[in-house]
């Protein structure tokens, strides 16, 4: 079966099994080269193995919920969106969410995902109480910060290379409504945007959309969006009466791959300019429902197809705080000069992060989308180098084309990761197309 990540690049012919029980997972592992796959939302080749892809979507049952602590116990293939549907009406919301709700819990743990509140709350891993991980020999270990703590720590952000995550217990946060009070702040350039971030450390959510084709004094002009869960008594009467109800939205979908000429620097420039001016008009406060606030793109099913059949790649790096400004300027300038506008460019402040192999570090992260073509591949190599020059690192959940050398230059933690992999038969049993490419 041909599999690819969300970017539709690369496409890999994979042998796939879809186990429903622990015993079926154990049986699949005996063939080696196994990698767990969730809902296929990693962008590149993280969750595909030509020899042995283990589709975990059959592990889709919720097991328990504790109304006192907000702890959910669920199988790894449960979708985040299903967790929200089940528990938001009871006043609970995920403490950390990525930009799509179509991810599995197992995938969120393997990539140790972050959200718009990383500067305040860290990654999803910080809210995981325990996980059940199946090792190379088919035995299952319960891992938590106090039990099998090493395996627990490596599995957060371990990209599925420590074993198969079967089940997890994680905490939700109490919320009073399904609404987010959003504050939109236009920023004329990168300096201004960073000033807003630095002044908004107390905001629960913050993220900036960048017009990455702007140049000169306007380089990095942005719309910074801050957000807070709206307390019930701040809502209007209508919403206050049913604080967890939002109107059902019509779903649009992109039914087929757009021709590759549909996205070019002209259309991207036009879109970016329109988005910015539209955003400026909406500056200030508004109430936005959770689905539109956290998952605007989920409303367009299959939006990845706008990039055409050849697919697209995302570049996402994190830069340390003290070199963020210089690094971001260099990255945005290179992108602007190349004229390879990114349809979506997102900037976000990261808080401190203490973890074995997770992506975030204190500083800033920039994410850019590019269609796959020789020019963007060359540009991304340039962006790699700029990131390395500024002491940054890369998000493996987005990567589809990095070299092992780049990864090693960026991340001194690789050696320790390889030691962990060498133990307990992990390297022989668990591997993905990405881990083979990156020699992990």
């Amino acid at each position, binding site marked *: 079966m041909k599999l690819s990540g969300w970017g539709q690049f690369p496409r890999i012919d994979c042998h796939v099994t*879809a186990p*429903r029980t622990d015993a079926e997972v154990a049986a699949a592992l005996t063939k080696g080269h196994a990698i767990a796959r969730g809902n296929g939302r990693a962008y590149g080749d993280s969750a595909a193995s030509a020899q042995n892809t283990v589709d975990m979507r059959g592990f889709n*049952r*919720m*097991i*328990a*919920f504790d109304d006192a602590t907000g702890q959910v116990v669920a199988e790894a293939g449960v979708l985040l969106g*299903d967790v929200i*549907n*089940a528990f938001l*009406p*009871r006043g609970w919301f995920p403490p950390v969410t990525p930009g799509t709700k179509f991810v599995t819990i197992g995938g969120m743990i393997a990539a140790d995902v972050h959200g718009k509140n990383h500067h305040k709350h860290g990654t999803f891993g910080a809210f995981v109480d325990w996980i059940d991980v199946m090792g190379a020999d088919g035995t299952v270990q319960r891992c938590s910060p106090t039990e099998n703590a090493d395996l627990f720590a490596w599995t957060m952000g371990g990209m599925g290379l420590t074993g198969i995550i079967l089940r997890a217990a994680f905490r939700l946060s109490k919320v009073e409504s399904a609404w987010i009070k959003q504050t939109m702040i236009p920023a004329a350039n990168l300096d201004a945007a960073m000033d807003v971030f630095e002044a908004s450390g107390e905001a629960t959510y913050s993220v900036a959309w960048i017009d990455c084709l702007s140049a000169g004094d306007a380089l990095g002009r942005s719309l910074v969006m801050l957000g807070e869960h709206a307390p019930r008594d701040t809502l209007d009467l209508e919403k206050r009466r049913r604080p967890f109800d939002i109107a059902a939205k019509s779903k649009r979908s992109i039914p087929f791959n757009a021709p590759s000429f549909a996205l070019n620097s002209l259309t991207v420039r036009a879109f970016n300019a329109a988005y910015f001016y539209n955003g400026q008009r909406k500056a200030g406060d508004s109430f936005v429902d959770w689905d539109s606030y956290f998952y605007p793109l989920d409303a367009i099913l299959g939006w990845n197809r706008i990039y055409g059949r050849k697919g697209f790649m995302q570049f996402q790096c994190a830069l340390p705080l003290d070199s963020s400004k210089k690094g971001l300027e260099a990255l945005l300038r290179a992108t602007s000069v190349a004229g390879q506008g990114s349809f979506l460019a997102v900037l976000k402040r990261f808080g401190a992060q203490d973890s074995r192999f997770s992506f975030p570090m204190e500083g800033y992260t920039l994410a850019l989308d590019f269609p796959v073509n020789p020019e963007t591949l060359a540009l991304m190599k340039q962006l790699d180098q700029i990131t390395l020059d500024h002491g940054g690192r890369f998000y493996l959940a987005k990567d589809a084309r990095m070299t092992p050398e780049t990864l090693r230059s960026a991340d001194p933690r690789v050696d320790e990761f390889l030691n962990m992999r060498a133990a307990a038969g992990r390297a022989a049993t668990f591997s993905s197309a990405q881990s083979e490419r990156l020699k992990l």
Partner: protein
Amino acid sequence: MSNKGSVLILGGRSDIGLAVAHQFAASGHPILLAARNSQSLEAEKKDIELRHGVNVSLHDFDALDTASHGAFVDGLGDLPEIAVCAVGVLGDQFENEQNTETAIEVMRANYEGPASIMGVLANRFEERGSGALVGISSVAGDRGRASNYIYGSAKAGFTAFLSGLRNRLAKRGVHVVTVKPGFVATKMVEGLDLPEKLTADPKELGEKIEAAVTRGKNVIYVKPIWAIVMMIIRNIPEMIFKKTSI
């Protein structure tokens, strides 16, 4: 939390049965899951209760033990408002051509058992004067084909049974829905290479079934294309049909 009528799922372990259970539970209906060895469905019960906040009860049910069907319905307590029969086995056509015993098992599991329990429920629903009966039959019952006629013949019988039941109960306040799913991506067909455009996922089937009950539809194909495909297959003259391999 709601006063919606309960929904009985016969064959509550199957992917289709569970998908239908989730669909009705999401609309606030309490669920009764019936299957052999039903206490092993504890995880499914918990999952449905957690996701949808409705009550789920488990009931031992053996479709092939037809003598027990009356007592089974008595044992449910309150008569459910809706009953969905998702009982069935695909079997191995080639093996069943050679082995009468296994062939008869397939026939019984797809026709005799389902018809028996639907018949018992039909009488109770008729007495009450309300309710809906949903039978999951198959496009395989629309015309016997070399590749699966043992399964198909039993489904053909079940389709005819449901059609007659609908005719009988139409004026008695009881609605009967016949579902012909076509290919559905379930455990039953795992490993078969199915054409993507013709294959529904169980969730889609659940949605269609709830809609059919709500809107009083009689016979539904899950993917509309199947209605066309099967109309063509039914209308090929036998002289030609017998030489084909569809």
